[in-house]
């Protein structure tokens, strides 16, 4: 005979406005097995919780139903309160009479009756609840950071400085990401590499950080605190230990005309190369697609010239398995491909370039040593047009969102151009100037007022080339939309920031969800911006949405703190709401017949095979067993089990059947 307590919350007016709370308490108080029932203005308030605790002690309650808001809101609160009063927290259930009742129905008897039904259901359920002890799992205090851009670097350093081990995986031969390509950064115009490279070096030298460049994540198994990750270290065709990074091979390589990715195709590199001078690690890799040896079978000049004999033509990819407790995704973004702008001739006309290419032109370490020269003929453009929103806010091109960073970097580009080409005339075609941020608006004003950049509010319709000039056909909407044509020497498109190439595949590999634009999805847009829906996996930087440097860094530090918090305990406590296979006395052992259908549907590989042996060690029966650490409690196995041998705590067949019956028979 159970002794259940029912506590009906008014939630101020939120519930009592449409539900007669006293009545609900009174009626449900008469239910079989209910020892005590009351209603109170704010159950979640301190006095409310005290009331609950007192009642548990006073009436020796062995089950509690709190009829209030959504359990997604306050279940932890009340379960904690119960625990404090000495009642097993899993003997406490909530009836959602606010979100699912008082807020969605008018004030009438039906609504109050529904509230009663909902409470009754839970009362019946609680009768079937079992006292459970939360599960403790060990935490591997090593973090995996995927992506070596500024976000990844920040996150890795923060975690490492908390004293935890970090493994960083970078797809390219060097860390640094897009930030290492930038010239100067808004709004302070400090040199990007000057502030970035020290941190890159720190990564390489930090005792707590292991760096895998030219590597990709192959697979991720396990769960929060206990992930197993396979990393594919792509063959660099050199021995990293023997190589001193003298760079002789790169200067001697006969194959020199390969478009340089780092320079966004504005420069060339050899087949054995270091992406850029400040690269970390500063050791070359061989690009096998373009290496004469791998194509024709002869050459080997690099091997001949290498003073330390570090070239390894037959080196193969290596798979490294690592155990980590948390994962930070910092894979960054990409810019929209050229084939989205046929009307702008982007990809067709040499002198129509994108923002990142302009960064390289403006960068002191770039292909032009920081002089603004147009790609086609190396002339200094006297008239230059910047086109904002190239792809962004353009549903016709499939991108409805605002890329956020373009307004600022376009203003910066115009300013840099003016600083380098004093007699030049920059135009900016824009729709709106979105300069929210510390010192941002001031920066834009400076570009316009002090540097005399012509801002024209209108979108460019088309661009065509004619004897060395690019005719830009735009309109000035502030003048009633009158068309204007500008004969420019060079055009820079602020192409939209999009999810990085391969983001979708990675999301599926690490089991995180992503949005319609393939940016990784945060767990909550406001309150969990750096968490994902998968426990133990966090987001940093522009892989979640276009972000500028300060935002990326902030997000990275945020993610790092989440990791540090997770690592602050040796054991991780988890709800015991997991599946379990029933056991019975020999000779049956269990109603499980060992069909292992459950194994085939389990998304977490949580079903293990357990062999029952007799004294002579012969196997009598093979049963399924649930690994409590791996099981996430989805219950798919339960629904599937033919013999109902497997069940799930908190949502057991008994409980749900009881709920259904209680709901329908009043």
């Amino acid at each position, binding site marked *: 005979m159970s002794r259940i307590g029912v506590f009906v919350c008014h939630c101020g007016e939120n519930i009592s406005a449409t539900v007669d709370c006293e009545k609900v308490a009174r009626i449900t108080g008469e239910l079989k097995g209910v020892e005590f029932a009351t209603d109170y203005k704010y159950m979640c308030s301190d006095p409310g919780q005290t009331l609950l605790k007192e009642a548990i002690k006073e009436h020796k309650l062995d089950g509690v139903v709190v009829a209030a808001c959504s359990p997604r809101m306050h279940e932890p609160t009340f379960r904690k309160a119960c625990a404090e009063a000495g009642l097993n927290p899993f003997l406490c259930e909530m009836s959602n009479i606010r979100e*699912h009742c008082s807020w*969605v129905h008018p004030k009438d008897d039906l609504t109050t009756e529904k509230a009663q039904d909902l409470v009754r*259901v839970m009362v019946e359920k609680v009768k079937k609840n079992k006292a459970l002890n939360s599960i403790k799992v060990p935490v591997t205090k090593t973090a995996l950071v995927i992506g070596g851009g500024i976000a990844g670097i920040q996150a890795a350093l923060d975690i490492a400085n908390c004293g935890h081990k970090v493994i960083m995986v970078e797809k390219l031969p060097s860390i640094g990401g897009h930030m290492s390509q930038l010239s100067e950064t808004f709004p302070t115009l400090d040199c990007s590499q000057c502030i970035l490279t020290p941190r890159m070096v720190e990564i390489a030298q930090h005792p707590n950080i292991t760096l895998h460049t030219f590597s990709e994540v192959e697979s991720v198994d396990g769960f929060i605190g206990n992930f197993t990750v396979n990393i594919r270290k792509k063959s660099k065709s050199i021995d990293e230990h023997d190589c001193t990074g003298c760079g002789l091979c790169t200067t001697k390589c006969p194959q020199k005309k390969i478009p340089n990715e780092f320079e966004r195709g504005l420069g060339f590199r050899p087949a054995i190369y270091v992406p850029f001078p400040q690269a970390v690690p500063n050791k070359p890799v061989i690009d096998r697609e373009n290496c004469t040896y791998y194509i024709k079978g002869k050459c080997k000049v690099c091997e001949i010239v290498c003073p330390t004999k570090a070239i390894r033509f037959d080196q193969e990819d290596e798979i490294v398995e690592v155990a980590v407790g948390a994962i930070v995704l910092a894979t960054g973004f990409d810019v929209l491909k050229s084939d989205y702008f046929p009307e702008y001739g982007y990809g067709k006309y040499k002198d129509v370039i994108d923002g990142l290419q302009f960064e390289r032109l403006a960068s002191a370490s770039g292909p032009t040593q920081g002089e603004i020269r147009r790609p086609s003929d190396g002339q200094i453009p006297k008239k230059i047009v910047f086109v904002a929103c190239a792809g962004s806010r353009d549903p016709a091109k499939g991108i409805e969102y605002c890329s956020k960073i373009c307004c600022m970097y376009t203003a910066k580009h115009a300013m840099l151009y003016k600083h380098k080409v004093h007699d030049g005339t920059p135009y900016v075609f824009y729709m709106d100037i979105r300069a929210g941020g510390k010192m941002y608006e001031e920066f834009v004003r400076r570009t316009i007022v002090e540097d005399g950049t012509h801002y024209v509010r209108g979108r460019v319709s088309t661009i065509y080339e004619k004897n060395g000039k690019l005719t830009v056909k735009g309109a000035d909407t502030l003048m009633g939309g009158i068309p204007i044509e500008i004969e420019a020497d060079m055009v820079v498109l602020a192409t939209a920031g999009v999810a990085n190439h391969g983001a979708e595949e990675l999301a599926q590999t690490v089991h995180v969800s992503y949005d319609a634009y393939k940016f990784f999805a945060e767990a909550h847009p406001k309150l969990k911006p750096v968490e994902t829906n998968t426990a133990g996996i966090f987001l940093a930087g522009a892989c979640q949405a276009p972000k500028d440097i300060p935002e990326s860094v902030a997000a990275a530090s945020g993610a790092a703190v989440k990791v540090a918090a997770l690592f602050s305990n040796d054991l991780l406590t988890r709800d015991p709401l997991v599946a379990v296979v029933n056991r019975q006395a020999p000779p049956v052992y269990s109603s499980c017949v060992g069909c292992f259908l459950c194994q085939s549907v389990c*998304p977490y590989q949580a079903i293990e095979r357990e062999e029952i042996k007799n004294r002579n060690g012969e196997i009598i029966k093979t049963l399924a067993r649930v690994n409590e650490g791996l099981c996430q409690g989805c219950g798919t196995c339960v*629904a599937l089990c033919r013999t109902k041998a497997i069940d799930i705590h908190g949502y057991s067949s008994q409980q749900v059947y009881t709920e259904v019956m209680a*709901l329908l028979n009043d």
Partner: protein
Amino acid sequence: MQEFEPKIVAFVCNWCTYAGADLTGTSRIKYSANVKIIRFPCTGRIDFMILMKAFENGADGIIVSGCHPNDCHYSTGNFHARRRWIVFRNLLNFAGIETDRIQFSWVSAAEGFKWADVVNNTVKKIKEFGPNESYKQIAVSTLFNEEGATHE
């Protein structure tokens, strides 16, 4: 006699539809009180014998709702639910129960409006159907045979 108020049970997953219904509440969108929600960790957990149980006990209609495909909190649960539903539907047809008494839908945690629509449409539809007498008769017989099997 007053208008027929159908009894409808909603079997929803905790992560999407339950949260979606919460959102319906927080956005104060009104819907019919005939529907009562039972929370499951995932639609994958829903053993369709439970639906039969609901019909036995006088449910006039049933809603099963979870995360959109690919959005399942447990990555694949809702797919299993969908497959099971396809099989189960034929079973119902075979048993001679109007499958339209069961509404299968995807409602995400962000679709407060959609949940209200799903509920109201289902209630409307079930009202047109009228009480689920036909099944109750069958139920009586099945009740005896099944009681033991499914219930403890």
